[in-house]
C-alpha cells in the first residue's frame, strides 16, 4: 500500500497573528512557519502504517514557494520516505489544491491519501472532501482512529453524540483529527537523514489545471477588542448595571 500525505505550510500556531497594516492579509514576513498541526497527525499515521508493515511507501506533497521545502524536510525527518513540492507562487483556494492533489494522485497511484482535517490559517475544511469527490473515492473526515485490514478501512470520528465507527474500502481519502495520535519529535539524526531523502519539484503550470481564484478578499481586519470587565461591589450594583447600562433585565 502506497500512502500520500498532503502537508501545508502555515504560520506557526504559537505565533500571535498580526494583520498587515494595509489590511490585505496576515503578516507572514519574518514569521515562524510550520507544518499545519493536523497534517502532523497525518504524517505520524502514515509513518506508523509503514512501521506496522502495512504501507510500502510514504510520500508527502505540498504546494507553495521554494521555502515550502522546509515542511517537507520536517515530514521526512518524522519518517516520510520522499516528497514532492508543487511550486506555486500564489496561494491556492481549496478547489485548486484538490485539483493539484488529484494530478499527483494520478501520477503516484497511492492507495490512501491522508491529510489534516483543516488548515489553521484559513480553516476552510474543504480540500479533503473536494479531493474525494474529484477522485470518486470514499472519504472519512476528522478521523480519530484508524485500522486497516486488507482492503477494509475502519475509522472512528468524534461527533456530537459520541463516537461514530465507520467502515469503508481502499482507495480512500482520510482527514485527520488532532486526537488521532501524538506526532513524534524529529530527532537530530533523523533530521540529518531527511536532508538526503528525495524531494522532487514540479512547476504547477505543467499540471495544466485552472488555479484562478474564485474568491476576492476585500479587506482583512482584526476582530473587535473585547471591552475590559468591571468589578461590582454588591448585588445591588450588579442588578442596576444590568438594568440600566446593559439593559438586559
Amino acid at each position, binding site marked *: 500500500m502506497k500512502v500520500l500525505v498532503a502537508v501545508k505550510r502555515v504560520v*506557526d500556531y504559537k*505565533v*500571535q497573528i498580526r494583520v498587515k497594516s494595509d489590511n490585505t492579509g496576515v503578516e507572514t514576513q519574518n514569521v*515562524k512557519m510550520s507544518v499545519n498541526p493536523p497534517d502532523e497527525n497525518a504524517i505520524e499515521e502514515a509513518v506508523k502504517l509503514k512501521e506496522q508493515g502495512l504501507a510500502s511507501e510514504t510520500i508527502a506533497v505540498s504546494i507553495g514557494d521554494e521555502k515550502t521545502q522546509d515542511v517537507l524536510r520536517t515530514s521526512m525527518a518524522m519518517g516520510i520516505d520522499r516528497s514532492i513540492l508543487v511550486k506555486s507562487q500564489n496561494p491556492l483556494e481549496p478547489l485548486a489544491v484538490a485539483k493539484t492533489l488529484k494530478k499527483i494522485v494520478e501520477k503516484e497511484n497511492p492507495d490512501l491519501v491522508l491529510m489534516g482535517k483543516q488548515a489553521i490559517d484559513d480553516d476552510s475544511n474543504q480540500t479533503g472532501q473536494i479531493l474525494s469527490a474529484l477522485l470518486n473515492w470514499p472519504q472519512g473526515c476528522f478521523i480519530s482512529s484508524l485500522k486497516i485490514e486488507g482492503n477494509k478501512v475502519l475509522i472512528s470520528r468524534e461527533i456530537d453524540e459520541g463516537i461514530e465507527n465507520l467502515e469503508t474500502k481502499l482507495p480512500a481519502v482520510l482527514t485527520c483529527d488532532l486526537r488521532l495520535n501524538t506526532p513524534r519529535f524529529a530527532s*537530530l539524526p533523523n*533530521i*540529518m537523514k531527511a536532508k538526503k531523502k528525495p524531494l522532487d519539484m514540479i512547476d504547477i503550470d505543467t499540471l495544466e489545471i485552472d488555479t484562478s481564484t474564485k474568491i476576492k478578499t476585500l479587506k482583512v481586519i482584526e476582530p473587535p477588542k473585547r471591552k475590559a470587565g468591571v468589578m461590582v461591589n454588591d448585588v445591588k450594583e450588579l442588578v442596576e448595571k444590568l438594568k440600566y447600562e446593559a439593559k438586559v433585565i
Partner: protein
Amino acid sequence: MEREQLEYDVVIVGAGPAGLSTAIKLKQLNSDISVCILEKGTEVGAHILSGNVFETKSLDELIPNWKELDSPVKTKVSSEEFLFLTKEKSFKVPNLFLPNALQNHNNYVISLSNFCKWLGEYAENLGVEIFPGFAASKVIYNDNDEVIGVQTGDMGLDSEKNKKENFEPGINIIGKVTVLSEGCRGHLGKEVIKKFDLNKKNKSPQQYGIGFKEVWEIKEENHEIGKVLHSVGWPLENDTYGGSFCYHAENNQIYIGYVIGLDYKNPYLSPYDEFQQFKTHPVIKKLITGGKRISYGARALIEGGLQSLPQMYMPGALIIGCNAGTLNMPKIKGSHTAMKSGIIAADVIIEHIYNNGKLSEYEKKFRNSWVYKELHQARNVKPSFQWGLIPAMIFTGIDQKIFGGRLPFTLQHRHADHEALIPARNAKKIDYPKYDGEITFDKPSSVYLSGTNHTDNQPNHLLLNDRDLSTNFTIEEYDEPAQRYCPAGVYEVELDDETQKKVLKINSQNCIHCKTCDIKEPSQNIEWVTPEGGGGPIYSGT
C-alpha cells in the same frame, strides 16, 4: 541510557551573533571543517531580543560584500538625540557633549533577531549545520575533565520525568572544540566558569542589567526613519542605573526599550513597571499615541565589561560573546563585539585543529584586537554609576571626552547584583500607576505578544535549590522580589491553604528566557535550566 552520538569538528551552542560569526569564519577559513550549531529557539532569531543600533565593524570584516547582499541591515542612523528626562520635561544634551561612544551616525537601526536569521541562512549556505529547536542541556567531559561536547535535552518527558508516548532521548554531540555562545548568563557558561574557575583573575564580580523592548507601529507623521533617541532620568530614581532607547526602523516601526542595572537596591522596584511608566512621558506618549504595539520581550544584558571578563578558554572549549561578557556598556552595544569575539575564536580553532595550536592563544589574540581596546576605553563608565547619575555623567564626560577612556586607573564593581537588595522593611514601597491598555499594558497581555510557549506537562525548568528558602527567607526578607523583576509574571506569591503561609508559585510556561531570576535572586536559589527544545518566546522583529 545509551545515547546516539554525532561527531563534528566544532560544536557551537547558540545561534546569536557570536556563534554564527564563529561558524561562518570557520567555513571561510576551511570549507572542509564540519560545524554544527545548536539553538534552543524554534528557529534562528526566535530568542534574540536586542535594541538595536548596529555597528558594522565586525560585519565588514566577516562578510565584506554584505552591502551587495539582501541583508536586513538597511536603515542608517539619520539623526540622534540624548535626553535627560524629568516627570514632565525633557532636556536635550547637545551632541557636542556626548562621548563618542554615544554617537551613532555611521551605524544602522536593525532588528538583531532578523539579522541573525539572515546570518543563519548565510552560514547554512556555507555548509554549517544549524539545528533550531535543540537546546544543549549538559556539557560532556572526558576522564581528564576536558570538554568534549554537549548533550541535547530529552524531549517528551512529563513533569515527573516519566517518558511520554513521544519520548525522544537527547543525544551526545561530540566536537574537537566546543564553543559556548549562549549569550548573557548561559546556563552551560555558568557551569564551566565555576568548574574551571575562569573568574579567578578577575577583580570585579559580573554585572547585569535587564532590558525590555517593544516594537510599535506608529502613525506615519510621527515616524522619522533612522532616528535614534536615548534618555536617562525619569522615571528612575537617581541611584538606579538605567535609561531608555527609542529607534525608528523601517515600515513605520519603532523599537522602544528600557535597560535597568540589576544592581538596584529596592526590592519593591519593578523594572517592568518603570518601563511601562516611561512610555507615559510626554515625549514618548506623543510618539506612540494612535500606534499599535506588535511585539514585547525582555532579556538580561551583561554589563561588567573588562573588569569582570572571565578567561575565555578552557580545556576543549571556548566561551565567547555575551556568554563571557564582551558587551560595551557605555555604547550599550554587544553585537559587534560578540561577533568579533566569534571571529577570533574561529582563527584560534583552525590553528588548534590543523596546526596543533593551543586554545589559550585566544587570550593573546583577543588582547591584541580592537575589541580589547574598545572595552578598555569603556571600562570606567559603568562602575562610576555607583556614585549616582549626575556625578557619574560628569565623570563619564571627563573620562570619555577629555581622556578618551585612558585614565590611569580602573574602577571596580563593588557587589554582585544579587547582593545589592536591601531588606523590604527598610525599603520604600513604590506605587506604580495602573495600566491604561493603550500605551501601558499588564504583564499577561505583554507576555502574550512574546509568543512564548512551553509544552505543558514537562519537567520544570526553573529549579529551586532549596525549596523552603523562598518561603522562609526571600518572601519574608525581601517581599519576594521575583514577583516584580520577572518580566513575564512567572513568579507569584500565594497563600498556602493548609499552612496559611505565603508560598512561591512558579508559572514556568510563561518564561521568556531572560535569565533575570538566575541573576538577581538574593540567595542565588533559582537555577534556570533548558526546557524542552523549541520552548520559549517566538520573537521576530526584536
